[in-house]
């Protein structure tokens, strides 16, 4: 999923200060899974902001809504019923959702309540870790299912570097050395001879090196 974390309260307070009423919009997909911007988080943030501004003597009206997704125009359209009643929108979706709301409601200020982080997976409850950076040309088949781009601190395609210590990355002892993981898995799969095949320099164009990316499905696009 796409993971995100709520911005610090101080930043959010400053952000909504100029407004009398806002629409706090959550998203039922990725940010719900990583407990950052789903229905529950919308409820807690709305309550927190309301109490803060009550105390400050400048009551803030907050409308709460959680859309199925904010990255599809059909769902963003649902905001039409609330949008005129508010001065601004505070979106608890990832960066994609915030931008889609801004695109649809051209004249309404839209702000992000979250810092979008990475594409990742759950390691265990409450812990999400980076797994994919969307490089556009997946090599997981060569590296035994561990991504050298997103999990190696130096994105080495022919690692490990000389700083690998006890299976951990030199940068942070809580981070696994991706190439140790790759090697362990190559061993488990009986593919150790693959290690000495040098992977060639990557073409970064599919990764965004050629500019903002787009996928067009000819069979589906009208």
């Amino acid at each position, binding site marked *: 999923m796409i993971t995100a974390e709520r911005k610090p309260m101080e930043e959010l307070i400053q952000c909504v200060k100029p407004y009398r009423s806002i629409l706090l919009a959550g998203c039922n997909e990725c940010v719900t899974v990583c407990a950052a911007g789903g229905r529950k988080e919308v409820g807690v943030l709305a309550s927190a902001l309301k109490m803060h501004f009550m105390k400050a003597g400048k009551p803030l009206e907050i409308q709460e809504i959680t859309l199925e997704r904010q990255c599809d125009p059909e769902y963003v359209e649902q905001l039409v019923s609330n949008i005129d009643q508010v001065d601004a929108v505070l979106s608890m979706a990832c960066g994609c959702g915030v931008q889609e709301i801004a695109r649809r409601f051209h004249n309404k200020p839209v702000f992000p309540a979250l810092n979008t982080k990475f594409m990742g997976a759950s390691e265990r409850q409450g812990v999400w870790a980076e797994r994919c950076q969307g490089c556009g040309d997946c090599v997981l088949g060569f590296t035994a299912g561990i991504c050298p781009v997103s999990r190696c601190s130096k994105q080495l395609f022919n690692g490990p570097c*000389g*700083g690998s210590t006890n299976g951990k990355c030199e940068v942070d002892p809580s981070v696994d050395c991706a190439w140790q993981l790759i090697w362990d898995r190559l061993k488990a799969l009986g593919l150790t001879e693959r290690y000495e095949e*040098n992977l060639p320099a990557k073409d970064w164009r599919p990764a965004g090196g050629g500019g903002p990316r787009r996928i067009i499905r000819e069979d589906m696009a009208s």
Partner: protein
Amino acid sequence: MKTESTLEKILASGDLAVTSECGPPRGALPQKVREKAELLRGYVDAVNVTDNQTAMVRMSSLAACIILKQMGLNPILQMVTRDRNRLAMQSDIIGAYAHGIDTMLCLSGDHPHFGDHPMAASVHDIDSIQMIQMVKDMRDEGLFQGGEKIDGPPKMFIGAAANPFADPFELRVSRLAKKMKAGVDFIQTQCIYNLDKFEKWMQGVRDRGLHEKVHILAGITPMKSVGMARYMKNKVPGMDVPDEVVKRMGGVPKDKQADEGIKICLETIERLKNVEGVRGFHLMAIEWEQKVPEIVERAGLLPRPNSVNLGAQNVRGGKP
């Protein structure tokens, strides 16, 4: 000969080669480069010039190499993949060769986390092994990495680093094989304190015949104090300092520790001279460059072959 590199000539002759390091200053101070490098004249065959070492901004390796060249010394251009994309790398490589710099070392580089700009974006457009391949193709095929012809290809003698002490150990010979496959000519190892482990690695290297395809220079760093020994043991990733070494350093009074460090260093060199496949030494006397001449002399590595240090005879009055 693949290149005009002096280091290549010395290694090809079968003599033990000696290289050392010069870390550029953290400012536009060419005089500091000259002072440091001058200490090494006549004692080493080539001098590595580091590239933003430990991810701290320093005068660029290329700029400092040019200063060394102007002094009549023989610089080795170090280049990390952390700070430059392949365009900038190739650009600097042909620029370096235009200044007569014909030997280089291809490295990944320490992570910005350790340096003075942890907020910087790392590049890592290609990794060190892909860089070796790239430089080899520039030299032997006369082609840029993108495939087009180079007008005036750089004939670089290509080096890389090897760390027999990093994890996982079982991979460390394979890594050397990968670099060899990519086209590396010579290797400088991480500094050696654990001689048993190093010899074990060399055995693995010899078993595969890699020692005949790549010139291996053993890395040597003298300990200054027991504090330094402990620091390197505990705080530096990829460094293996056995307890005996720390104990030995701590077993002498403070004012004698530096001498003990030099002693250990010389014993290491002696032992390594007898390890088949070791073709020379790379002396990294961090913040202690003035000791290099003494170490080279006491290790019996003088005189250095005549073909280097063009200005040496004038300066030293006949000493080769």
